[in-house]
C-alpha cells in the first residue's frame, strides 16, 4: 500500500479521521472556522454510502446526530462558538441517554458571534459545563493536523466505548493550517465499536450495566424496543422519581469515566525531566510555547512543557506532580485564564501559576512566552 502523504488542512483531517473511524453520518450547519469539515464530508460521505445533511440550524443538527447514533451509525457534527452554544441542550440529552456522538467545536472569539475568522481558545469551560447538570464529558484538543486525524478516531472510539458525547475542541489555527501529514494505513488503526446486547430483545434492559458501568446498546430498528428520554430514568429507560433509582442512575453516569481515567487522560511531556520552570498549555498555544521553549533551552534555561491533550477529564494528578517539581507554571492560552484556574487548583499552591492570556484575535507569539519564561528565572 502506498503511503498516504498529503498536504492537509486540520478541518479536512477531522473529516478523513471520522471516515476512517467508521463515521457514516454527518449533520451540521456551516459556520466559520469549522465549515470545511462539513464541506469535505458532503462530498466524501455519499461516495462511501454515508449520509450528509445540512440541517436548518445547529440545534436540529445535534438532534439528528443523536438520532442517527441511536440507529447504530457513528455520527458527527461540527460547529463553532455560537453554534456550540445552541447545541448544549442536546449535548446534555446525549449525555443522560448515553448516546455516543462526536461534536467538533473549532473555537472562534466570543461571546456571541464574536470573531468569526480569528483564533481563540475561550470555549474550554463551555465544553466542560456548557450543558446544565452534573454530567460526564470527554474533551480532546489537538495541536497538529496529524494529531487532529488521530484524535478524531480516538473521539469516536471513546464515545463508542464509554457511551458518552466526546468533544473535539480545536482552535482556528489548527483547523485551518495546512501541514504535511502521512496517515497510517487503515488496517493499522484501532477502531472500537459500541458493545451490543447479547440477550434477547424481550430480556433487554437498556440502562442496566455490569461492572464495566457501560450498558450494552441496541440499535433502533433491530427489534430491541426501548424508551429514550432526557428525564432521569431507571434501567428500563422509563422516567423515575424514586430517590434510590435516581441515585443509582446518576452515580453510575457520573462515575463511569473515573473508572477509565488512566486510558482517557493523555498529555505530552517535552523536556520536563530536568525542568525548573514549567509550561502547561494546549492546542495552537502549545506550538507557540514549544518554539519559545526551544529558544529558552538554547539560552540554557531549563524549561519543560506539558501539553494537555485531554482537557476534560483534566490531568490533575500529573499537573500536581509537575507543580512540585518546578518553581513556576506558565499557562499560555487564548482566553482569560480558563485552564490557568484549573492548573492553580491542581498544583495546590506548590508552584506559582503564571497566566499568559490574549483575546484580541492574534495568536500568542513565541516571544511573549519567552519573555514570561525569563521573568520566572
Amino acid at each position, binding site marked *: 500500500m502506498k503511503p498516504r502523504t498529503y*498536504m492537509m488542512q486540520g478541518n479536512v483531517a477531522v473529516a478523513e479521521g471520522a471516515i476512517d473511524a467508521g463515521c457514516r453520518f454527518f449533520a451540521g450547519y456551516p459556520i*466559520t472556522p469549522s465549515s470545511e469539515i462539513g464541506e469535505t464530508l458532503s462530498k466524501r460521505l455519499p461516495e462511501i454510502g454515508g449520509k450528509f445533511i445540512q440541517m436548518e440550524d445547529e440545534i436540529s443538527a445535534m438532534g439528528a446526530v443523536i438520532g442517527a447514533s441511536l440507529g447504530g451509525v457513528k455520527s458527527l457534527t461540527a460547529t463553532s462558538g455560537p453554534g456550540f452554544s445552541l447545541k448544549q441542550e442536546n449535548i446534555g440529552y446525549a449525555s443522560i441517554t448515553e448516546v455516543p456522538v462526536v461534536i467538533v467545536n473549532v473555537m472562534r472569539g466570543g461571546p456571541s458571534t464574536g470573531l468569526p*475568522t*480569528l483564533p481563540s481558545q475561550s470555549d474550554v469551560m463551555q465544553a466542560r459545563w456548557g450543558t446544565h447538570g452534573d454530567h460526564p464529558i470527554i474533551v480532546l484538543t489537538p495541536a497538529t493536523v496529524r494529531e487532529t486525524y488521530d484524535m478524531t478516531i480516538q473521539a469516536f472510539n471513546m464515545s463508542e466505548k464509554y457511551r458518552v458525547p466526546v468533544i473535539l475542541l480545536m482552535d482556528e*489555527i489548527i483547523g485551518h493550517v*495546512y*501541514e504535511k501529514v502521512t496517515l497510517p494505513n487503515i488496517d493499522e488503526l484501532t477502531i472500537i465499536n459500541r458493545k451490543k446486547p447479547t440477550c434477547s430483545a424481550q430480556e433487554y434492559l437498556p440502562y442496566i450495566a455490569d461492572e464495566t458501568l457501560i450498558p450494552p446498546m441496541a440499535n433502533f430498528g433491530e427489534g430491541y424496543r426501548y424508551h429514550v428520554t432526557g428525564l432521569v430514568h431507571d434501567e428500563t429507560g422509563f422516567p423515575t422519581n424514586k430517590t434510590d433509582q435516581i441515585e443509582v442512575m446518576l452515580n453510575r453516569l457520573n462515575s463511569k469515566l473515573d473508572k477509565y481515567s488512566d486510558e482517557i487522560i493523555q498529555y505530552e511531556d517535552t523536556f520536563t525531566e530536568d525542568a525548573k520552570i514549567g509550561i502547561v498549555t494546549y492546542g495552537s498555544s502549545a506550538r507557540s510555547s514549544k518554539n519559545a521553549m526551544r529558544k529558552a533551552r538554547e539560552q540554557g534555561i531549563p524549561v519543560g512543557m506539558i501539553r494537555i491533550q485531554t482537557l476534560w477529564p483534566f490531568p490533575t494528578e500529573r499537573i500536581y506532580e509537575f507543580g512540585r517539581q518546578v518553581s513556576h507554571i506558565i499557562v499560555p492560552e487564548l482566553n482569560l485564564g480558563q485552564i490557568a484556574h484549573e492548573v492553580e487548583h491542581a498544583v495546590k499552591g506548590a508552584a506559582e501559576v503564571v497566566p499568559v492570556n490574549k483575546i484580541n484575535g492574534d495568536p500568542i*507569539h513565541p*516571544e511573549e512566552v519567552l519573555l514570561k519564561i525569563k521573568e520566572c528565572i
Partner: protein
Amino acid sequence: MSFHYEIRLSGAGGQGLILVGKILAEAAAIYDDKNATQSQSYGPEARGGASRSEVIISDGDIDYPKATNIDLLLAMTQEAVDKYANDIKPDGVIIVDSGFVKNNPKGDFKLYSFPITEIAEEKIGKKLVANIIALGVIEKLSGIISEEAIINAIRARVPKGTEEINIKAFKQGRDLL
C-alpha cells in the same frame, strides 16, 4: 541552523493569496519533499478586507506556523505593504504590485515592483491570474522550490480546465526577471 524560509502573501480578499500559499506549501512539501505549513488570516468578507497567507518551508519540524521573521513578502495592496514591510528580515525580498502600491516602502530589503495585475490582463487576458503571475516571481526570487514542483502543485490545486492558463501565467511571472 537548519533551513527555514518564511513567506507572507498579503493583499485583499479575492486576490487568490490563500491559493498561492497552498500551492507553494504543497510544492515544497509534496513535490520537493521538504516540510511546510500554510496558514491564513482573513476577515469575514468574501471579497475585500485584508487577507494574508503565510508559508513556512523548513527541513525540520515547524512548531509555530505563523511568520515572525519574513524572508519574502508579496504585497498586492498599499495597505498590505504599509502594514508588513517592517516585519521583513534584513536583506529580505519585497514584491509589490505597482498597480496598487504607489508609495514604495523604504528599508533594508530588496524591492521588486511590477504591474502584476495589469500584466495578467494584458498578457493572459484575465486579471484573475495575477496571483499566479506573482507566484512565478516568487519562485524565481526565492529560489527555494523547484519550477517543476510548483507546476505539479498548480495542476493539483487550480480548478479543472484552467491548468494551462495558470501555467502560462506562472511562466509569465518567471519571465519578468
